[in-house]
């Protein structure tokens, strides 16, 4: 299957890419890893007239971890991010998310920036980064601006980017990653988007919960952050009763729609199950017990 005809330029910098995009007008699209864009072009769901390839921008794949913030270049690939955090034994919620995306082949090409810019409600990075209230850096004709991922992703498939604007970096504050976390998902197969995913990060004060972050993917038209869960949990220890309460509240909070992957009722019950699994994985990691699988496949 061939995409329809288009012209092609390889940009050496984001500034060059932005200028080419503006010049190309409505028919122009940027290409990062191509793992969403190329399948859509092959199916002729998209027929761009000009492709601006970001693949030549070599300095946008870096991962910088310091005491205050984690910064990731927009062109960093899922596999590189996941392997880096796993090797450093740091922030398992990030490596769970990255290494649970699709399959090895797609992870080797797909980028974090492309995943955000696509604004697919079922993508994994958006669910994680909304839960952690991360920010993106955007470069465009008007200069550079920072934006919360929550504000970038206000609607499905339509990121808040103006003509010629590009995502260049992702920043997560370390404070949001204090404690222990897990990213869990329920999938039909590796090379498929999850039916639902849950990001959970708990900061403990001794045995008690000091702060909790909970986010959902594929359970609404945008990734959802359930901030009220933190109030339910703060000051308490993790007990089966608390997990059941938060799972029930999460199940009522999410906004799933009926589709081929399941009915609304099914997905609400799946949300509760995934929240429970996320708590179990986090608790296992905290106590050093063997943690179960973060990603489960069926079908």
């Amino acid at each position: 299957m061939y995409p329809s005809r288009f012209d092609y330029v390889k940009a050496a910098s984001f500034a060059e890419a932005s200028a080419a995009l503006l010049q190309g007008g409505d028919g122009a699209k940027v290409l990062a890893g191509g793992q969403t864009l190329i399948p859509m072009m092959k199916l002729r769901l998209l027929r761009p007239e000009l492709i601006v390839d970001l693949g030549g921008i070599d300095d946008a794949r870096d991962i910088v971890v310091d005491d205050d913030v984690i910064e990731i270049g927009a062109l960093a690939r899922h596999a590189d991010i996941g392997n880096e955090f796993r090797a450093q034994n740091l922030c398992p919620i990030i490596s769970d998310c990255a290494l649970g995306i699709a399959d090895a082949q797609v992870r080797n090409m797909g980028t974090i920036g492309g995943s955000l810019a696509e604004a697919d409600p079922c993508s994994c990075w958006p669910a994680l980064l909304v839960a952690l209230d991360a920010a993106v850096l955007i470069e465009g004709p008007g200069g550079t601006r920072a934006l919360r991922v929550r504000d970038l992703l206000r609607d499905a498939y339509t990121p808040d980017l103006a003509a010629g604007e590009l995502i260049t970096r992702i920043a997560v504050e370390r404070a949001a990653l204090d404690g222990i976390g897990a990213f869990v998902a329920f999938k039909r197969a590796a090379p498929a988007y999850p039916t639902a995913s849950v990001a959970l990060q708990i900061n403990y004060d001794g045995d008690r919960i000091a702060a909790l972050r909970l986010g959902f993917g594929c359970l609404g038209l945008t990734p959802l952050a359930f901030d009220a869960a933190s109030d339910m949990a703060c000051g308490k220890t993790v007990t089966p009763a608390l997990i059941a309460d938060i799972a029930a509240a999460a199940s009522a909070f999410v906004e799933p729609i009926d589709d081929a992957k399941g009915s609304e009722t099914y997905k609400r019950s799946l949300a509760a199950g995934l929240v429970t699994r996320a708590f179990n994985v986090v608790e296992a990691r905290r106590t050093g017990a063997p943690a179960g699988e973060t990603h489960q496949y069926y079908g």
Partner: protein
Amino acid sequence: MSSRRAVRERLLGRRINTMAETMKIPVSITLNGSIVRADVEPRMLLVEFIREVAGQTGTHIGCDTSYCGACTVLVNGRPAKSCTLLAVQADGWSVNTVESLESGDTLNVLQQCFADKHALQCGFCTPGFLMAATGLLEQNPDPDDKAIRKGLGGNVCRCTGYLPIIEAVRSAAVVIKERRS
């Protein structure tokens, strides 16, 4: 005037008067160690470049929709789906296909283990599995069954039921380790 033509004219900085002319881009890809150069349409997929331009038909096209992994090749040493990449993206890259595994008429260890363990029946999926498994063993020379299953999660086989494939990769890992020590 079509907007496509308008875009091209702005890009080229000159008027063009025929839609029949299609932009072609020179690409140079190191395929199985040899440089292959060609001028290609930007929409040419990497798998078509490998099969049609370079004439190496070991790499298969199965689903053509990014799901089955039959088209898996190594790009710069790592498995990727060549039906989901453009040849122009791969300009300057090193690409290895199933043709790179054997030397002369001799199968490599992984191929031999696939044969010994009956890890193929019709064989259509096999080039993709071999390349995905090559990438996996490169990254993790001692994978347990879970890691093998996860590493091959992007490949579909409709014949074998997968268990012989997992066994083949496991035994290849053992043989490779023995040879190294």
